[in-house]
């Protein structure tokens, strides 16, 4: 049985809860934060049944940066210390709406970028003081290149990846590991009825990839790993061609 303490922002997301399941089986303790209290209780009961030693929850809206910082403070208090922190909250938003309505774009940037940065600011302090632990930041392959179909979401995730990269450099040498995860297409409830191609991966598979990258203290992990090569190609496409592409 492990005495690992796991703190998760956005704990009801499919990827985060699949990762939590894997850690629960080893007996980890959790502090879970998400917006919907009943969903949060559902996830907490699930993790306890799977073998989690202790699970505490905090239902709150993380759209406000101050709320994200308060969540970190409460989480540290509940767990005593944080061994693994997962920043998984976010919204996809509507690209079409965000293109013409700045308020919609701003909401995506606040939830997907400002709020994670607020949480990371507090977490970095907590973890630096402890001199150990891991921070797992959920980015996206959408953040690797601006595409017309989702550049607002992509901008938030891309900026978050840059922030995490800098933070990794700052905390390196302090014993704290920062992992940026970039999932590809994931078969989440939101995409359940869509026809799947071979690129889709289950949240369980993505969680397995995250766990492996976390164990081997990787810096950046594409999950599943073949996305690394897809994105390498995507970044190679010259701008004068890519700007004409409808992707």
């Amino acid at each position, binding site marked *: 049985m492990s005495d690992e303490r796991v703190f998760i922002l956005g704990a009801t997301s499919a990827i985060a809860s699949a990762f939590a399941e894997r850690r629960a089986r080893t007996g980890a303790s959790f502090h879970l934060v998400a917006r*919907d209290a*009943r*969903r949060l209780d*559902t*996830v907490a*009961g*699930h993790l*306890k*049944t*799977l073998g989690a030693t202790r699970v505490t929850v905090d239902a709150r809206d993380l759209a406000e940066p101050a709320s994200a910082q308060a969540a970190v403070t409460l989480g540290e208090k509940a767990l005593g210390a944080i061994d693994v922190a997962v920043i998984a909250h976010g919204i996809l938003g509507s690209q079409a709406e965000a293109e013409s309505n700045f308020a919609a774009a701003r909401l995506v940037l606040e939830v997907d970028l400002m709020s994670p940065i607020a949480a990371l600011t507090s977490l970095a302090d907590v973890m630096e003081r402890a001199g150990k632990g891991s921070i797992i930041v959920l980015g996206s392959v959408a953040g690797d290149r601006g595409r017309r179909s989702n550049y607002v979401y992509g901008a938030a995730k891309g900026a978050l990846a840059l922030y995490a990269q800098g933070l990794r450099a700052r905390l390196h040498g302090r014993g704290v590991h920062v992992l940026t995860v970039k999932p590809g297409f994931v078969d989440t*409830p*939101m995409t*359940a*009825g*869509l*026809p799947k191609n071979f690129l889709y991966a289950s949240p369980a598979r993505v969680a397995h990839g995250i766990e492996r990258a976390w164990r081997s203290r990787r810096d950046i992990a594409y999950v599943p790993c073949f996305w690394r090569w897809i994105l390498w190609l995507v970044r190679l496409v010259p701008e004068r061609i890519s700007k004409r592409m409808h992707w």
Partner: protein
Amino acid sequence: MASADALLSWGRRQRERHSCVPISWASDPFPPAGADLPLLPYGCGRSYGDSCLNAGGTLLLTRGLNRFVELDRETGRLRCEAGVTLREILELVIPTGWFPAVLPGTSHVTVGGAIANDIHGKNHHVGGTFGASVEAIELLRSDGSRRECSRDREGGLFAATIAGLGLTGLVTRATLRLKRVSSPWIAAEAIRFRSLDEFDALVTESDRQYEYTVAWLDLAARETSGPGGIFFRGNHAQPDEARPGFPMAGRRVRLPADLPDWAISRTAARAFNWLYMNRPLARRSVVSPWAFFFPLDGIEGWNRAYGRRGFFQYQAVVPGRRAAEALRPLLDAIRAAPEVATLTVLKTMGDVRSPGIMSFPRPGLTLSVDFPDRGPETARFLSRLSTAATAAGGAVYPAKDAVMSGADFRASFPRWKEFSRHRDPGFSSGFWRRVMHE
């Protein structure tokens, strides 16, 4: 978030578009906004015919309801969401000394599907159906109400929901009673028999002493004697004979594409069955429950072997204890027909009563046969076979059925009127419309 998609049932014969709505949270408002009536829950899609299809309506995809609520390790009570599969339950409970009360032939079924079809397994002769181990059910109805039912509370709705084919509402959570076992490993035996009289002798010898029994029958062989087959029986291994550690589910290989329609011919079935019948058998060995209960789970998508045309599985139960006599009307019809009986399973059913008023199992013998779909002729043949079963005082299993007439359905399930009073008016299925001529 409705999306149109062509979801298939396990027989892969019908390709119709459905509007699909994933259900991920039992606590969310119901029915979901934008879901057009009628509704039908869809779990793993392991029903063979049209009982899990709802062309023109909405399928509620329940695999997102895949969380455990609580496991009481003292009493063996498990509460979980309805989209949890028996595979997930088995993985959870094997290390605890508990075991699911009933396991069917595949682990890839959801708890909701197991309740809706009141499934049975190799221990039916002593343990009864899955429904007998269900203590409570949380049900969401299309009128927006949330009903918690059990034997003592809303007993009528409870009895209609077990074997209710998903038509009484959406099951979101259930409480199951697990059983204590000496070990999860199975001490198993396989014994060849050459005739149904030999099968009867094995049943008489085994059904009292073995918790699990089932027989594979060779109906593809040329008619000389027989039919023969292999009788499987087993008990949970005693701690001193169990293998060390906990049995883990093996890796699966996936059948990557449909085989051509001609792949499963009479000659191929005959050759395959001959090889299976005459393979060397280990008389007694301690095996993993994964291999003992789910021999076909090792090949993901094995149903694609039947090609694009798909296949039927026919399953009926007939009263009687002497196999040669009880099964004669069915076996005569099968052998007279030009159809190819690829995989046949025979099992005795016991008299443990299910709480479900529409439950399929009843005392007697149940025969299940796979037939490749060779066209309308195959459907007509199966319809005749269904009538033969009900004429013999038996019943046809809706989870497998794609052809039975309304009359055969009503003969199989005499309490259908009582059932239809509990049916949620906002729920329906291809099967229900077919047998009710709605």
